[in-house]
């Protein structure tokens, strides 16, 4: 697994991807790779836990837009949890939060997505 991914697990049909460190293009590509693998095996619900990614850049976040686009084609969903304030603000400015909910914890996100 990439250094940018701390953990991947499935909870109640939701794929929880926990990221690690600076969310740049490398981290974005790492999440996209996990997403593609899981989507190919039928998963449509994803929760991205960013508790260990307090700093992002727009190149990494842009890769998440690609995931949103792919999920729209299969009626899937992606949500986020444990966002630092500036990360959530960045997501708001870029419009990510128009398409993805933000939850306070992994458990809350899994409960809503499942």
């Amino acid at each position: 697994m990439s250094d940018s991914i701390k953990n991947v697990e499935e909870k109640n049909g939701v794929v929880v991807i926990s990221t690690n460190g600076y969310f740049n293009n490398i981290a974005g590509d790492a999440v996209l790779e996990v997403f593609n693998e899981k989507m190919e095996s039928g998963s449509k619900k994803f929760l991205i836990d960013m508790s260990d990614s307090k700093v992002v850049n727009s190149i990494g976040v842009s890769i998440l837009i690609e995931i949103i686009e792919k999920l729209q084609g299969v009626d899937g969903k992606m949500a986020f949890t444990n966002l630092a304030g500036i990360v959530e603000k960045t997501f708001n400015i870029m419009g990510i939060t128009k398409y993805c909910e933000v939850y306070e914890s992994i458990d809350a996100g899994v409960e809503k997505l499942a």
Partner: protein
Amino acid sequence: MKNPEVELKLPVIPDIELTATKTAEVISKHMSLSEEKTGEISMAIIESCINAFEHSKTKEIYIHFIVSDDKLTVKVIDHGKGFDKSKVEIPNIENKLKSERKRGWGLQLVAELMDTVEYDSDESGTTVTMTKKKEGNE
């Protein structure tokens, strides 16, 4: 020192922009800026650095932090080929979802995160001057 100035010279290597955000955190603490403002300054610096790295085609950039009583001024300077800001499209996610190119958010983010932003660019380089007021807007 009450109103220090700090200058960084950054080579173009992966993730070097994080050096500038660490400096911004120290300066923000010195100015007693809030965590929210500190995050906004750091994110604006990251985006300005990335733009400079990608578009200037130079081997190094310079960042100046200028502290004054009421605000922090940050200048991101490169001696590259310059760019025409009027030709940069304002992004929105609806268009990005349909487009092959998902990137292109840097200028928009900096504009939204800082209190003022000015671009001075010609064929000898680009200077981005951005400010964050010490008080207000929270």
